């Protein structure tokens, strides 16, 4: 504070406010801008370069091999499976999340005693570190001590001493991964929908009720249409977070059994970092980019549409 006065006194000598703003503006944003260019922009260009080389962890002097990594990757069955899984996990979990979040947001839009603690418990999956939370699920899906199995046995749906082997069978492992993704993203979408729900003018709904519109009619003809932009926001961000996530699959299944739950990010990790094949790993990661770009464009278009309204 003591320094501030003399420096600015020097700055202000004989200068117009406008001129100083023109200097000050770019000056203030420059550090953040440079940081992002150097540590996001450069690595991104570097990723594209790496993907066209045969670089490995042991061999820093890579040679240029054009699109060979991409061709090789696209032809591998494991990659195709991972690509398909990434979409299956993202789409199925997002559909479930939006439906459940809508119901939950409606339930939370009322005031009741203890709402704070209920909200906290519902938010836990999103706010807790995902790798640690997924360990909790690993224990829930344990081959022998799974509590789901225990409940099924207690209910007589599973013979005594039998187990489901949740993470040992491809179909169940996929259900497990989707469950954890739904669990993780549900709070995020719920809170966004809740924010939208509370911004709907009360008198519109009241008027509709007076005019004789029932609960379902109000829901489908007023609430949901008015919420559409907010629902889109929840879906778009949810899609990005799920599509690019690696922690859930890595902790839960390591992509197994036999690569059947592998996703793009985990496959890139296993090939590029664990296997040391940087070129192939970078190429696999880059397949995330078109979807990211597509969603980013949708977000921008959504923003513009809201602006017009």
């Amino acid at each position, binding site marked *: 504070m003591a320094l501030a006065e003399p420096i600015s006194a020097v700055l202000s000598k004989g200068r117009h406010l406008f001129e100083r703003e023109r200097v000050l*503006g770019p000056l203030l944003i420059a550090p953040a801008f440079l940081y*992002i260019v150097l*540590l996001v922009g450069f690595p*991104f260009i570097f990723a594209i370069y790496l993907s066209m080389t045969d670089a490995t962890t042991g061999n820093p002097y890579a040679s240029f091999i054009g699109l060979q990594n991409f061709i090789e990757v696209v032809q591998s069955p494991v990659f195709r499976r991972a690509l398909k899984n990434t979409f299956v996990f993202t789409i199925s979990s997002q559909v479930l999340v939006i439906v459940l979040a809508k119901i939950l947001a409606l339930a939370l839009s009322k005031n009741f005693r203890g709402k704070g603690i209920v909200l906290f418990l519902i938010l836990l999956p999103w706010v*807790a570190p995902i790798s640690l939370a997924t360990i909790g699920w690993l224990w829930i899906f344990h081959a022998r001590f799974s509590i789901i199995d*225990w409940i099924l046995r207690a209910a007589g749906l599973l013979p005594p001493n039998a187990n489901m082997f949740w993470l040992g069978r491809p179909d169940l492992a996929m259900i497990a991964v989707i469950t954890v993704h739904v669990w993780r993203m549900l709070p995020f979408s719920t809170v966004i929908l809740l924010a939208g729900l509370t911004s709907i003018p009360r008198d519109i709904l009241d008027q509709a009720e007076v005019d004789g519109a029932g609960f379902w009619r109000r829901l489908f003809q007023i609430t949901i249409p008015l919420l559409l932009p907010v629902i889109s926001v929840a879906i778009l*961000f949810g899609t990005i977070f799920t599509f690019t996530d690696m922690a859930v699959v890595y902790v839960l299944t390591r992509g197994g059994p036999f690569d059947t739950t592998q996703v793009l990010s985990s496959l*890139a990790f296993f090939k590029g970092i664990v296997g040391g094949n940087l070129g192939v790993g970078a190429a696999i990661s880059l397949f995330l980019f078109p979807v990211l770009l597509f969603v980013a464009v949708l977000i921008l278009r959504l*923003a513009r549409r809201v602006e017009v309204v």
Partner: protein
Amino acid sequence: MDQVLLPRSLKRFGFQSGHFLVLGAFVVFTALPFAWMLITAFKQNTDLYNPMNNPFWFNEPPTLDQWRYVFTKTMYARWLLNTAFVGVMVVGITLLLAIPAGYSLARFLGRWGEQLGIGIFLVYLIPPTLLFIPMARVVTALGLQNTLWSLVVTYPTITIPFSTWLLMGFFKSIPRDLEEAALVDGYSRLGAFLKIVLPLAVPGIITVVIFSFTLSAQEFVYALTFVTATAQKTVSIGVPSDMVRGDIFDWGPLMGSAFLASVPVAILYYFVLDRFVSGFTAAGAIR
């Protein structure tokens, strides 16, 4: 038809219990893994590893053995310290860069600033899984592999964009007149910013502090990629990778340490959630 004939209070009661049933089901779903962690962390191994035992209750007396193991036989305490160190450093770097950037976007760059603001926000959406391989190379080139500094340097690439965006919104909501009045009163630009604007932006700054800190505690991909030395790990990778000996999972200590690290982060996050969410909804409704 029946519903119409029901007394109003009974209908209300039915509606209310339905409401609580729905909420209750959701709470069980979201909180179950944490409840299960908490119970597991106080159970004896003989109790845990008996598939006949009711997992939701203590079939044998509770014990603190699992916690003793966590704090004496593993580097958990070290990982917590590491996480705190990375978190504090990341918060510092983020504030230092995002406050001026957000202010500049809100005040000085006009229409152009808005475009740039959206652009910077979109950088937040670039996930670590897209960049971790080249980033590993960058980290090695900087000589930071296997150190906490690799995380201190890379996490701000995620926190700065979102924080700049959030602060831009905050600075915009502060009336320009306040600063102009201060300038007329003889304050310098910097003086007006420090004395008038910054105090009003405190809620935004607190949000950024908590967001950056919790993100540092939550991040997994970069930490897993850059740090392999046990003593240099943060909680989010130390627990999943180093508490497992080969194929042997020590479920008691694992659940205890996962629970203990999750809940404080969750509580911190909970307090700024509203403002954090408004960052997203604002992105969908940019003026």
